[in-house]
């Protein structure tokens, strides 16, 4: 039995829930898939760094520089621990998931891919796992193939197995769709990719915040994710890579910190991970990222997953009873805490705006997954997404709000 937590106790860790929206409405935040709220532990870790220890890292020998460097490197250990990386050095700090994917495309990709090579993606990718590959495909004349989504909104394993016959060099896929909530069978996808000699990139932007993710168990070659979707600050993300891959990759951005020695006409790159961290990084944000990883680990990712599974089941059950609503995504057993829906005759903007009037924050649009919306046959959806701090009462409030939308536009 997974250890559980008391949501109402945990909510006290998040100062934002003290505020009200508009006319004294309680904030009901159902947009964590876009960005999560931050616990005091994260906010204070960053404040404390600025108040007490602020200095640049890796160079100075004074007390503050030593403290700052230690805090920054401790954050790397905390993030590595959350995903069970074999070494903290396999965790590179980037700006976000998008930058992590671009880094892989421009270093590993340019070095290892060539004209005619096949890259497999899926139809449910976020734009950040589509556009970098489209750009690289244009440059190197690559062939992009897409694993479709089944009628049940699942990763189409049969189609994937057929695509593997093309002997792809790379399989890059989301572990959890930010629109459908679909959780993909990452371990099996990776194992099958490895059987044909492909490298694997797991987009963990949604999975790392919400599920236990163990890179060694998955045998993932690359895993990318962002701090801000997992209770941490914006402006920092991570790229996990297997050490032998990282060692063989050329540097990404050139500048300070990423070098061992520099001459006027040449340089020798630094070791991993610094080779990929040019310039002064987001130090405070890295420290906040580390605090967020530790906060989640203290709760236990099994407990996080169990809580969200409960909410996902309840949301689907409650939304089903609303006439004229269509929810996109699989049944709760394969789904994270995300509910994207359309309502007959109602525009997502209008739904989101009326709900905002009730203090309920949801998202309206294509959620950076336009091709997926096309395959679902809709322009845009309204998305309610859930995290550790959300309650079933908030789901009830969402459903009440949806009835209010129907009343106003009915």
């Amino acid at each position, binding site marked *: 039995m997974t250890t559980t937590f008391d949501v109402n106790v945990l909510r006290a860790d998040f100062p934002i829930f003290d505020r009200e929206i508009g006319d004294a409405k309680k904030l009901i935040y159902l947009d964590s898939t876009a960005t999560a709220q931050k616990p005091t532990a994260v906010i204070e870790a960053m404040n404390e760094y600025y108040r007490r220890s602020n200095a640049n890292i890796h160079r100075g020998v004074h007390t503050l520089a030593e403290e700052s460097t230690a805090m920054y490197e401790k954050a790397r250990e905390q993030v590595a621990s959350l995903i069970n990386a074999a070494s903290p050095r396999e965790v590179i700090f980037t700006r976000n998931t998008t930058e992590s994917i671009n880094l892989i495309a421009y270093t590993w990709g340019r070095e290892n891919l060539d004209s005619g090579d096949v890259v497999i993606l899926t139809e449910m990718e976020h734009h950040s796992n589509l556009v970098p590959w489209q750009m690289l495909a244009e440059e190197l004349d690559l062939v992009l193939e897409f694993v479709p989504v089944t009628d049940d909104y699942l990763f189409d394993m049969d189609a994937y197995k057929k695509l593997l016959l093309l002997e792809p060099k790379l399989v890059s896929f989301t572990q959890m769709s930010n629109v459908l909530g679909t959780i993909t069978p990452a371990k099996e996808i990776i194992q099958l990719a490895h059987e044909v000699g492909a490298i694997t990139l797991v987009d963990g932007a949604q999975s790392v915040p919400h599920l236990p993710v163990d890179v060694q168990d998955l045998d993932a070659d690359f895993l990318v994710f962002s701090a801000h979707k997992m209770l941490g600050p914006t402006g920092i993300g991570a790229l996990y890579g297997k050490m032998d891959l990282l060692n063989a990759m050329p540097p990404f951005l050139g500048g300070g910190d990423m070098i061992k020695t520099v001459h006027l006409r040449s340089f020798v790159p630094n070791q991993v991970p610094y080779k990929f961290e040019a310039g002064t990084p987001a130090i405070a944000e890295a420290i906040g990222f580390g605090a967020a990883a530790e906060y989640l680990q203290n709760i236990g990712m099994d407990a996080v997953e169990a809580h969200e599974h409960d909410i996902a089941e309840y949301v689907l059950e409650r939304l089903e009873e609303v006439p004229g609503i269509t929810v996109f995504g699989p049944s709760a057993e394969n789904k994270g805490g995300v509910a994207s829906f359309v309502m007959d005759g109602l525009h*997502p*903007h*209008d739904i989101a*705006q009326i709900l905002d009037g009730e203090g309920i924050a949801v998202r309206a649009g294509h959620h950076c997954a336009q091709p997926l919306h096309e395959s679902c046959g809709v322009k845009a959806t309204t998305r309610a997404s859930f995290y550790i701090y959300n309650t079933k009462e908030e789901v009830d409030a969402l459903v009440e709000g949806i009835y209010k939308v129907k009343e*106003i536009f009915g």
Partner: protein
Amino acid sequence: MDDLYRQLIIERYKTPHYRGHLDPHDIFFEDDNPVCGDHIEITVRMDDADVVTEAAFDGHGCSISQAAADLLIEYIHGKKLDEVKALTKDDVVDLLGIDLGPVRLKCALLSLKVLKAGAYGLSVDEVSDELVE
């Protein structure tokens, strides 16, 4: 919320007065809001003195975008082409009579962008947000 969705907007969204397509026409233009896929097309007829005699819009989108289009079309009847070209976002905000945040403002201004692009005879590539600033 009640402010934002004042009765006028809901009414004009549900039963627009100027939905349609004029053929023949002197001005035609259409464009999308790439964020939400909303679409507006506008057709305008003018007399010899370049005064709008008839106009219509068609398309799909949220209540703000569609109501704004309907109110804008109503407003330009009897206006000279030069006056249409001189319209700004403040005119549309006044017509709607509500305050809008930056995201919803884009919804409200889609029809103005389409109208002005048509009035100036621009091509799709030449349309930018500067038109409605």
